[in-house]
């Protein structure tokens, strides 16, 4: 919402504060100032010009030559990049030597061989609004006017220096969507008197018959409907001062009837509508919900299909002529030939309008106010009178009596407020009187409460409040506590710090996750955090199932699916980095994946995964990191079960299980997948369902006393066929070694001469030790024999002598 200082002053005559101070006050009231600017400064050297001739530029397509009369009757040539003028148009021209509000200095220039003696200006170039789309055609809405060619544009347009604020208005402040509403808050904050100057206006006698029937068919839709017939209208341009204000507030002047309607909405916050009376069939205005299949051509020339969600205004034929609270219909639009109109000021149920806005995907200045809750009180009548008053400045209207029909209006019963509860919520110690003063300053009526069964004296604690009609949002004691806090000033509330009963700490899960991150950093991995969206095809390209949850309203196709694996995102990151010539990459990510749920669960099966990817390495490099994590975190019974896994190298992939449950995969990415992602290096890959692992048991470490007796080391080498795993051999050795086996380490693996095809040699170093005494040579050789026998019995490996 934009407001002008001069306009605010009409409601607060004593307002003479510094604009900076006013801006601070507005922000402190919750009307955050987004921008503040001084507008309408003296435009010296910008004059009214008349277009005499338009010619193409001989050497440039995007520029035309414009001859303008600047008051001396002669043609002055200007090169201009806009093409929206016609011969005879009146336009603002910045003459040579003038300086525009943005500091631009106008000089005589040559553009591709043609002289330009000045500049034709857009509205924004002369500091009047934001419209920079083409040259401002002063005569556009007023072709009949006698123009002072060569005269100052400032004088002609009545531009005066003013201050313009752009305010952010929250959804709970319907009243602040108007100049008067902002003024009311500001006046209260500054302790200045506030009043509505238009209330002093004396309405002319009704001379026209109020010959229109008004029906509210659905009282839950329309709470109040006011109308008035005005005859003797002459449609023409509105006064320049009014046009200027509209432009400053971001609206485009059209004609007096439309401009005045908009002006009153901006001024008093009351959207209103004008119908061409001649176009209303059956002398009737009805309001009801739309029926399925109904449609209407709206003012913006779009045919809109309606349904029961939408409200409509209908004529005597029950045909929709407007969408309630959102936009009027084209059929009864004001035209140049309109002489008789109906002015409508209605109050629509905010939730109904809000749903309709969403259903039609149609937002308007009117709907923005109605959905927040417009004023249903005296302001409706004030607004209607204000329209008549302003019309009478442009023509000589005759009016009818005001017609009013009511539907269901908001509950206006007083709200009871407890001083103690409000103080208890805010942390203040205000007296009831102070609270009442604060509320009354912004128009809330406060009354004492006489407790039942007392001595008849008013309660010291409770009072009651009648909420004004312009604050539909305010319905409860808490709502009022907010108003008290706002007008008291948030900055004046004394700060305190609550001391809760808890010792703050991370959960076991959260500590575990942090530890794993630290391990990975130590292992040289960089943490990545891609967005969790995938493009169609990403999963298939990674050799994974394409079954994924799709986004209903994706911004782009590349981000239209929710990931079910971290792999596609990681491969994209690797590909990106490699294309920027960063070769050796070690990445990890901890993030959510969203698996389609089975059964009737509504939400996806959302899990927290960990991935690690290493380029240029083989699978063993990443298994080593997995072992490091698993041993540090003491994951119970972490095992690898080598098998083929989608997306991974079929001969270099394994399931990872923890505590007997499948919790992920490890290996190398299938080279065919890498090709799909444009990666020309190997990628070792690990993906774990970290959330499930950390939700289970982990981290249990047991003390075992360190033996003080000497240990004995032996080496064993086996010839191992391809399908026998080192893990299974180790398992056998551990079993046979029992408590005496302190340590086992694979120290060599090779496929070389002397070993049969497909068979590799695995050599282990074993350390035996007893906690009860020194192991004799005999005992050690018995243990050795037991280990060999167990391996040879349970696997196809054979000892290499």
């Amino acid at each position, binding site marked *: 919402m934009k407001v002008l200082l001069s306009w605010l002053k009409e409601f607060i005559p004593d307002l003479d504060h510094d604009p900076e101070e006013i801006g601070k006050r507005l922000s402190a009231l919750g009307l955050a100032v987004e921008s503040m600017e001084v507008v309408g400064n003296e435009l010296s050297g910008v004059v009214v010009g008349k277009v005499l001739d338009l010619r193409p530029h001989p050497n440039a397509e995007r520029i035309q030559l414009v001859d303008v009369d600047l008051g001396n009757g002669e043609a002055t040539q200007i090169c201009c990049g806009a093409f929206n003028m016609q011969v005879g148009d009146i336009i603002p021209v910045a003459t040579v030597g003038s300086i525009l509000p943005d500091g631009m200095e106008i000089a005589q220039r040559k553009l591709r061989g043609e002289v330009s003696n000045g500049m034709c200006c857009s509205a924004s170039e002369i500091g009047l609004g934001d419209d920079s789309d083409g040259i401002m055609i002063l005569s556009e809405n007023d072709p009949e006017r006698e123009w002072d060619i060569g005269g100052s544009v400032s004088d002609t347009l009545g531009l005066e220096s003013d201050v313009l604020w752009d305010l952010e208005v929250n959804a709970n402040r319907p009243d602040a969507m108007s100049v008067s509403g902002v003024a009311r808050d500001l006046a209260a904050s500054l302790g200045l008197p506030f009043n509505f100057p238009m209330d002093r206006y004396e309405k002319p006698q009704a001379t026209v018959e109020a010959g229109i029937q008004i029906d509210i068919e659905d009282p839950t839709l329309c709470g109040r409907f006011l109308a008035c017939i005005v005859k003797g209208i002459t449609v023409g341009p509105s006064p320049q001062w009014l046009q200027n204000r509209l432009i400053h507030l971001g609206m485009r002047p059209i004609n007096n009837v439309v401009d005045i309607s908009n002006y009153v909405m901006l001024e008093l916050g009351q959207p209103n509508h004008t119908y061409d009376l001649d176009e209303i069939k059956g002398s009737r205005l009805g309001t009801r919900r739309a029926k399925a299949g109904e449609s209407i051509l709206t003012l913006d020339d779009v045919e809109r299909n309606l349904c029961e969600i939408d409200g409509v205004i209908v004529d005597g034929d029950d045909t929709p002529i407007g969408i309630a609270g959102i936009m009027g219909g084209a059929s009864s639009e004001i035209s140049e030939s309109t002489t008789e109109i109906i002015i409508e000021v209605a109050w629509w149920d905010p939730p109904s309008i809000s749903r309709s806005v969403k259903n039609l995907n149609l937002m308007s200045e009117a709907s923005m106010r109605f959905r927040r809750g417009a004023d249903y009180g005296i302001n409706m009548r004030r607004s209607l009178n204000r329209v008549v008053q302003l019309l009478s400045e442009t023509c000589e209207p005759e009016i009818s009596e005001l017609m009013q029909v009511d539907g269901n209006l908001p509950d206006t019963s007083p709200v009871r407020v407890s001083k103690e509860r409000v103080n208890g919520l805010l942390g203040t110690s205000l007296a009831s009187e102070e609270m009442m003063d604060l509320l009354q300053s912004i128009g809330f009526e406060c009354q004492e409460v006489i407790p039942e069964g007392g001595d008849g004296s008013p309660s010291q604690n409770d009072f009651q409040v009648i909420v004004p009609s312009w604050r539909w949002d305010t319905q409860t004691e808490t709502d009022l506590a907010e108003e008290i806090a706002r007008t008291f000033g948030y900055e004046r509330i004394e700060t305190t710090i609550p001391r809760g009963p808890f010792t703050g700490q991370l959960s076991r899960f959260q500590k575990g996750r942090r530890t794993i991150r630290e391990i990975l950093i130590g292992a040289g991995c960089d943490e990545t955090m891609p967005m969790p969206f995938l493009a169609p095809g990403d999963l298939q390209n990674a050799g994974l199932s394409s079954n994924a949850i799709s986004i209903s309203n994706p911004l782009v196709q590349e981000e239209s699916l929710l990931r079910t694996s971290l792999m596609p995102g990681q491969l994209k990151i690797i590909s*990106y980095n490699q294309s920027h010539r960063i070769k050796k990459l070690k990445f990890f990510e901890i993030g959510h994946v969203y698996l389609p749920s089975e059964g009737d669960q509504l939400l996806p099966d959302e899990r927290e995964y960990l991935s690690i990817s290493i380029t240029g390495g083989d699978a063993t490099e990443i298994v080593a990191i997995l072992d490091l994590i698993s041993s540090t975190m003491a994951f119970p019974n972490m095992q690898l079960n080598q098998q083929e896994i989608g997306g991974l190298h079929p001969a270099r992939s394994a399931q990872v299980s923890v505590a007997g449950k499948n919790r992920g995969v490890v290996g190398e990415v299938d080279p065919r997948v890498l090709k799909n992602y444009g990666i020309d290096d190997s990628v070792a890959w690990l993906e774990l369902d970290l959330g499930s692992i950390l939700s289970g048991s982990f981290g249990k470490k047991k003390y075992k006393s360190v033996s003080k007796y000497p240990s004995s080391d032996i080496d064993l080498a086996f010839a191992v066929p391809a399908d026998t795993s080192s893990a299974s051999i180790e398992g056998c050795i551990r079993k046979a070694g029992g408590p005496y086996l302190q340590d086992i380490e694979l120290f060599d693996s090779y496929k070389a001469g002397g070993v049969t095809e497909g068979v590799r040699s695995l050599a282990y170093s074993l350390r035996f030790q007893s906690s009860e005494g020194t192991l004799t040579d005999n005992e050690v050789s018995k243990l050795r024999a037991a280990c060999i026998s167990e391996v040879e019995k349970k696997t196809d490996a054979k000892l290499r002598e």
Partner: protein
Amino acid sequence: MFDLENLSNEAEEASNAASTLEDLTQVQTQFLGKKSKLVEAKKALGTLPAEDRANVGKEINEIKGQIEQLISGRKSALQESEWISKFNKERMDLTERLRPIDRGHLHLITQARDELEDVFIGMGYSVAEGPEVETAWYNFEALNIPDWHPARGNFDTIFVDLGEPEEVMLRSHTSPVQIRTMESQEPPIYIVAPGRTFRTDSADATHLPAFNQIEGLVIDKGITMGDLAGTIDSFVHAFFGEEVKSRLRPSYFPFTEPSAEFDISRSDGSWLELGGCGMVHPNVLRNCNIDPEVWQGFAFGFGIDRLVSMRYQLDDIRELVVNDARFLRQF
């Protein structure tokens, strides 16, 4: 008598001439070994007259002592010079950094998130988490945002194809975690909830469709707006520094009342908007079966990405999701 006068001079010459420890061992053998003149002289002592023996014996021992000292001194010098020549051979240029140990890097968001969590843990809060895909109940309705509410449109929600249209969505704020916590936990509640949030914002230099927020919630008896202001203030001091001040400004959120934006002071005296906060709306408490007549509380929230972007003066917030290793490894 035994011609020992020059022996110590000879030994000095010989040991000085020895350039290695091996040479010196030979000198030692020559002058102190079993066949050395000194040993032979000692053996021959018995042949001397009794009155001379003591003097000559003393002389022999003195010379022996001198030679031993000579050789041991020479030995130390030779050992020292052998070390020096060994060291010189082993010389290394320590500025040749051939095999750096590559440390990994936590993502900036994680670093900030951990730091924020730790500040609040110090204030007695625990860390709550929740799903990123949510129902309309948790994302909107329980938070006092009914379907018609004008504020719903401001969330620019990303919906997913589950359930009825617009029934399931990527959470547009971390506030659903408030509801889940209040549903599953009896007050008092002191939590922060960091996590990922989503809006249909096209990615540009200052916006991302997926970003991160942290949310705080306190529900206890007698919690006031003064407590909220004080908590924000003490967090701001802990995170940004003692000199940074905070202030609350009236605002509007359907789930809090009174509602406020909170700003932090900048060194140039201006204020920077950081996040939103307010007293938990009684309807929100009721929706979680918490009696608003007994319990009161506050909530606050703000964006982590923006915080990171401010702190490191990132010129493009998309750096946080591109994951260029050259970016990640800077921090």
